[in-house]
């Protein structure tokens, strides 16, 4: 598992103070810290346009940053909470428009700056990964992605998703068994 990027509380306090005043440098630091995790969470959810949803997440964050009180970990949890809420809103909007998001998801998952061959392999790999992940329930996939991307504990995932710790552990256990069955099936 790749290491979760982190900021010290002192760095975070200085960035937060500057970000509240609208300093773009501070927002750049916060974005570089959080955007890849949030964008991975949104991409793995199968959203057709995760970049736009990421922009909405940071707009919501800018509106709420004035009232935030806490440390770096709490701030990161806040951002994931916002991203989850925006993802739910986006799926509701898509369900009303009855669009098929899978092709758009595959298109958006292409890594920037890669050559055509590597991009094709990545698309196939991602397609396979997302297809397998799509066979889980939404709650199971969400818990697994939050655990893998954000490195959250069951209690923290429960705080982000609004579930109890026991419910999160139950979901994670079932998701792991289902995924293993899918991956090890002949």
């Amino acid at each position, binding site marked *: *598992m790749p290491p979760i990027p982190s900021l010290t509380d002192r760095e975070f306090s200085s960035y937060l103070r500057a*970000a509240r005043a*609208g300093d773009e440098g501070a927002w750049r630091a916060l974005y570089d810290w959080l955007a890849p995790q949030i964008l991975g969470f949104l991409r793995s959810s199968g959203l057709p346009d995760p970049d736009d949803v990421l922009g909405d997440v940071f707009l919501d964050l*800018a*509106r709420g940053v004035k009232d935030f009180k806490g440390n770096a970990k709490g701030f990161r949890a806040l951002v994931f909470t916002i991203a989850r809420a925006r993802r739910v809103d986006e799926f509701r909007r898509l369900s009303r428009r009855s669009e098929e998001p899978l092709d758009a998801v595959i298109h958006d998952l292409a890594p920037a700056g890669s050559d055509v061959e590597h991009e094709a392999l990545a698309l196939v790999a991602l397609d396979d990964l997302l297809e397998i992940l799509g066979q889980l329930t939404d709650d199971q996939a969400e818990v*697994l992605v939050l655990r893998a991307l954000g490195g959250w504990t069951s209690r923290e995932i429960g705080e982000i998703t609004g579930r109890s710790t026991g419910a999160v552990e139950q979901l994670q256990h079932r998701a792991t068994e289902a995924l293993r069955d899918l991956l090890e099936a002949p």
Partner: protein
Amino acid sequence: MDPGESRSVVAFLTSLVDQVAVAPDEVTAYRHISAAAATARGLVVRGSRSFRWVAAATAMVTALGTGGVAMAGGLPDPIQTAVADAARVLPLPIPVPYPHARLSDPAPVDHPEVDTWSRPAPAEAMADEPEDSGEAPVVSAAGDDSSERPHLAVASDQRSCDFDGERRHEGKERDSACDELVAPPGFEQDVDRFDGDHDEDRDEEFVDRDRESRADRLSEARDDDSDHRGQDESDRQEERHDHESPDDDSSTGRD
């Protein structure tokens, strides 16, 4: 991952994170960062926007209060006049302390030591006016107030009679307009009677009535004269009789 999770699951999740947890391209990142920073700056401005609302509400309350006091006529005279002058375009009944004095009129001389030599006293102004100038005489309509603000009363009446060109060149309308200000109620009939625009029948009727009244007065005078004459005659006879009787005594005595 938990130690109990299989390698396949760990490999799957690692591969997934490697491929999806990628930062967006630089253009998209710059767009997101700029929007977030602008939004945060907008929150600071939005904080001061509440103060702007407070300032606007204060200004509105002040304007309403001033307007209310002005409508009640409670402002100092110059301010009241200015407010009434400014509110002329609005259908608001704002009282004016000097009804005929607007900002364009000369200011009243409240202090005699200020500029008294250039403003003649009302009596002098009335006396200096040519008698046969052809203009309507300027007469104060302010009544008893003319003694308090004589200059204003003269100036305002002069403007009301002179500034209207139609009234100036149409003698009858001008006179009637000025008579509204000048003539007491008992003199309205006389003014109409000597107006040159009336028809001749009415004038002849007036002349006939005048002749009749003169004839009546003459006859009454004659009657009174005859009465007085008869009475004088009888008085004279009595007096003569009184004088004659002593004379008779003396004549008898003399004789």
